[in-house]
Structure formats: C-alpha cells, structure tokens
C-alpha cells in the first residue's frame, strides 16, 4: 500500500491515460465490457486520489517530490549549487486537495454517463476523450514544472473541445467548439510565451528553481501579466468568460461537470503561479487587487446574465462562472494581504479554497440534473418545459438541494464557505462583502426561476419519460450526500483538508522550494 501511495502522483496521470487509449480497443469486445473497464479505471483513479490525499494530509500538507525515472533529481553544479533535472511532480496540500475534487467530479460523471449513453452509439470515442481530459486535469494538478503544466493545459484544451463538439449533428456544438478551441489555444500560447520568457531569463523550467531565482525585473512582470491573463481566461474570469456558457451549454451533460473541474484546475494553476512561483517578489498587493477586481466583475456579471437565460444549461453555466468569482475573491483577499499576513487573510483563503470543492459538487449535481431533465422533457428551453415535478420527484429534490447549496442557504455547504468569504472580505473592505451577498441572493432568484420553469406547473401534455433511471439517480444521490455531509460537518473538513491546502499556498512557498533545492 505504501508503494502505491509513493507512486500515486504519476499513476493518477498514467492510469486514465492508459484507459483513454485502450477504450477503443476494448470497446470492440462489446458495450458491457467497455463499461466495466471504464468503471474500473475510474474507481481505481478515485481510490488513488483518496490514498494520495490521506498520505499528504497525514503529513500536514508538506510537499513531496516524485521523480519520473526514479533517479536522483539534483545534480551538483561546479559553483556548488544544485540544479534540478528530470521531470518532477511535486505534490503538496493544495495539489492533493485538487486531486480530491477532480476524482469526485470524474467518478460521478462517468457513473452518470453509463446510463446517459445507454441507447446511443459513439460511446468509445466519448469515454476515450473523457478519460484523456481526466488525465490532463490530474497532470495539471500534480506537476512541478512549468512546461509540463503547459503540455497538460493543451491536452485538456483539446480533449475538452473534442467533447464540446461531440454532437456533430448539431450546428451549435460545432460553433461552440470552434470558438472555445480558438480562445483556449490563444491563451495557451500566451502561457507558453510566458514560460519561454521565464526560461530565457532564469535558465530553468522547474517551478521551485524559478521561484528561487526570481528577481522582479521587467521580464518577470511581463511574464506575470501573460500568465495571469492566460490562466484567468481559461478559468472563466470576466471579461474573458464569454466562451464559458457556450462550452458548458453545448457539451453533453455529464461532461459539463468535468469541464467545470477543468476550469478549476486552471484556477489552481493560477494560484500556484501567483503564490509559489511569484510569491511576494513581484508586487503581490497589486496582483491581489487585480484578482479582487476580476472577482467582483465575475460575481456580478455572471449572476445577472444568468437571470435572463432561457436554456437551462446556459443558466447553470453562468452560475458556474459566477461562483469562480467567489473563489477568486477569497484567494485575492489572501494575496492582497500576504505581506502583512493578518488573521483574516488565512480565513479568506480557507473560504475561497473550500468553495472550490463545494462548487464542484453543487455544479456537478446541477448539471447532472439538467441532463436528466433535458432527457425527460426532450428540450432544454425553459419556456417550453413545465410540470416535471409530478413525475420526477427525486430529481426535483436533488435540484432544490443543489440550488440552495450553491446560493448559500444554510445548512448546506455553500453557506459554510461563503460565510468565511463574506466575513474575511468584509474586514478588507465592506464593499466586497456587499456585492458578494447581493449576488448570492440573485443566484437564489436565478435558481427559483429554473425550478419554476422546469419543475412546477401542471402536468405536461405529452408524458415525458417518468423518473430518471436508477443509473442516473445514484450519482446524483452521491453528490447530494457530499453536499449534505460537507454542510453538516464543515469544521471537520475545513480542519482536515482545507486548512492544510490554504497553509500550503499562504505559508508554504519556502517549504515548496526547499523540497527540491534542498534548503
């Protein structure tokens, strides 16, 4: 077991990658064999993520290094310094936390896909792309090397756009796929430009090595600007968020949840770059206030645009964009005060990071419900749906729980993380907390509109399909359980998994560097 947890960082990338390329072959043996194979890969990956998290959090979130190749990774230079070589994966508290989020979202999405794709063809390609996306997301989260991060960023871009444009018989998916692919590629190229600038200036690609050698000159500032904009665009910050409703709206329903995990992985990349790579060397306070500015715009524009949507998946997608703003707000408050380090800075970071897992669970649940009801009603337009609560009782309960949790209604998990964000951002500036609270109320209004449009009302004229099949209900129930568990016992989760992740970002820059460069 300890051998498995030692190799867990690279197995988390390798096993889904192996699965992605083996699925078309195994699919030739039949649908049932393929479903069992994909289920086994997903379950094994989730178990590995849990094992890695238990290992890392058992050590209190300290960073651990994994060398691909198993040989020593430090070579002594003639000047006496050691330089890291080989590809290194560095896992600290924040990486393990993101691994948990990805595992949760992926395993529920794959479990939902089994019954979502029951009567359709093309499942081989779909599972292959989904597992490739999973491998790319884990790669982005585990890596300790900037160029490796870029490669996995592009892998997720290609797999995500393949899934967005999957339904080639609809013109809208192709349009969405083209737009999203162009924007992802351009932002990825700017990230590569920044990596090239940093390499040319400091001579290394390893995050710890670069962090040690940063000076804060003009080239470093240009690289910071490029990385900040490129990664914030991929995470979905306003005003660069306009691809997000197209992407989340046109992808098949279980995939939208994994695309949200993809955006959160880009957000993780942004945090890793800002806290560990640049840290306090390059104008942390200015960058923190830039993040807070992005966050306020995202929260407000996301939720107001969600209010006027007719398509239920675009509505939930704008809600997802708005919630990314809360994470940016919490972590932005933390970054803006990183030099003085007041107590509320750590609370803000805890709130922002806790909101990542809450949002992943709630948005995943809402997208799965949207998939189930669009399957039952035959349409996604809220103006044409109605009265689904008569036939789909469990699904409507899941929708209500997911919507209340995301809008921050006690006692669910959204309130726990938003409570931390409100209180900490109020201490920095009351205006931030006012916008955040007002937008939470507007988000509740948005979901009331969705619930009214889809579920309430007289029975539909043509009977839909009845309750969602059991294969769809079980993943939704699992996510609801996570929502309720995180809501009723927030103290346990905040203390065990969120605080080590927040401390790893807020305090852990020197520990991260010395894990590779040896103190």
């Amino acid at each position, binding site marked *: 077991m300890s051998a498995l947890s030692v190799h867990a960082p690279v197995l988390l990338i390798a096993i889904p990658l192996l699965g992605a390329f083996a699925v078309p072959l195994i699919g030739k043996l039949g649908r049932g064999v393929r479903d069992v194979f994909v289920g086994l890969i997903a379950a094994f990956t989730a178990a590995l993520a849990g094992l890695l998290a238990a290992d890392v959090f058992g050590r209190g979130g300290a960073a651990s290094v994994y060398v691909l190749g198993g040989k020593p990774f430090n070579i002594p230079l003639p000047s006496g310094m050691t330089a890291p070589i080989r590809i290194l994966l560095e896992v600290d508290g924040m990486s393990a936390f993101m691994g948990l989020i990805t595992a949760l979202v992926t395993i529920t999405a794959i479990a939902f896909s089994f019954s979502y794709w029951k009567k359709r063809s093309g499942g081989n390609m779909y599972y292959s792309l989904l597992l490739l996306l999973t491998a790319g997301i884990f790669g982005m989260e585990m890596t300790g090397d900037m160029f490796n991060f870029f490669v996995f960023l592009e892998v997720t871009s290609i797999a995500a756009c393949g899934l967005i444009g999957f339904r080639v018989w609809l013109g809208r998916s192709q349009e969405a796929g083209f737009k999203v692919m162009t924007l992802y590629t351009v932002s990825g190229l700017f990230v590569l430009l920044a990596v090239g600038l940093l390499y040319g200036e400091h001579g290394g690609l390893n995050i710890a090595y670069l962090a040690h050698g940063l000076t804060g000159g003009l080239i470093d500032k240009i690289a910071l600007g*490029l990385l900040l904009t490129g990664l914030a665009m991929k995470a979905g910050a306003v005003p*660069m968020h306009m691809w997000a409703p197209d992407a989340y709206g046109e992808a098949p329903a279980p995939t939208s949840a994994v695309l949200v995990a993809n955006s959160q992985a880009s957000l993780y990349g942004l945090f890793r770059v800002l806290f560990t790579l640049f840290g306090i060397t390059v104008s942390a306070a200015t960058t923190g206030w830039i993040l807070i500015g992005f966050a306020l715009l995202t929260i407000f524009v996301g939720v107001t645009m969600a209010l006027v949507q007719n398509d239920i998946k675009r509505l939930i997608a704008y809600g997802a964009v708005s919630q990314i703003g809360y994470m940016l707000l919490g972590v932005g408050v933390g970054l803006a005060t990183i030099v003085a380090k007041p107590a509320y800075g750590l609370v803000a970071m805890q709130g922002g990071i806790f909101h990542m897992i809450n949002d992943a669970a709630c948005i995943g649940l809402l997208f799965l419900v949207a998939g189930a009801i669009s399957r039952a009603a035959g349409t996604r337009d809220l103006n044409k749906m109605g009265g689904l609560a008569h036939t789909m009782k469990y699904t409507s309960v899941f929708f209500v729980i997911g919507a209340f949790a995301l809008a921050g209604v006690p006692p669910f998990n959204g309130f726990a993380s938003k409570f931390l964000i409100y209180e900490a951002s109020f201490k920095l500036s009351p205006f931030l907390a006012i916008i955040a609270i007002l937008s939470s109320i507007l988000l509740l209004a948005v979901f009331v509109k969705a619930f009214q449009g889809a579920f309430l009302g007289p029975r539909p004229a043509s009977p839909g399909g009845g309750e969602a099949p059991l294969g769809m209900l079980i993943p939704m129930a699992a996510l609801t359980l996570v929502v309720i568990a995180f*809501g009723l016992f927030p103290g346990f989760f905040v203390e065990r998994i969120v605080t080590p992740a927040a401390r790893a970002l807020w305090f852990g820059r020197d520990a991260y560097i010395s894990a590779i460069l040896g103190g």
Partner: protein
Amino acid sequence: MNGITSGFGTWNPIAWTLLFIGILIVAFFVRSFGRKDYKRNTGQTKAFLSGNEEPDAPAGLHVSGDNLYWGMVHGLSAYYKRVRKWHSGDLSDYVAWFIGGLALIFVIIVWVG
C-alpha cells in the same frame, strides 16, 4: 464542538439544524390547534368567486421561463441592453476582450505596480 470560526463569529450547522427542527415542531404544534373537520376534495376547498364557476385553467396559466422575472429585468434594462450586446457571439469580439484585458493587466502590473 463542530463548527467553523472566522474572525468575527462561529457557524455551527448542527446547532442550526436542531434549532430549525425545534421551530418546525413548534409550528406544527400551533397548527394542530386548527379545526379537525376539514375534508379534502369536497366543496370546502373550492375558491369563492361570488358564486361563479371557477374557469378551466387557460393555456398560459403556468408562468415559466422569461416571464417570471420580467419586471426586474425590465427595470434593469439599461444595464442588460448594454451587457447582452457585449455577449455578441462573435469570435472576434471575444478575442478583442481577451486582448483588451491583457493590455489592461500589462498597464497595471508593469507601469503602475
């Protein structure tokens, strides 16, 4: 016990849930003081419309979709007209927003900060 603390206060969801259930019990207790001779699905439940018949549900009875928040959206129409036009669906506009954001960030980081 179990709960999270921030700089200002504490949030304990178990205590909140117990309080909520207690309030529900009190409400149910008060409700039980009502009349017990109520029969469903008889003439007692029909709406009183001055002796007229209750008309059949017309086609547009269910307020759905856009119509639910029409008033609020109409009130904020100055904001919505402009922001919906910005989400034009045109790829060149999306790239222009991206480059504009990049330029703004460069100005803030390199020049000011």
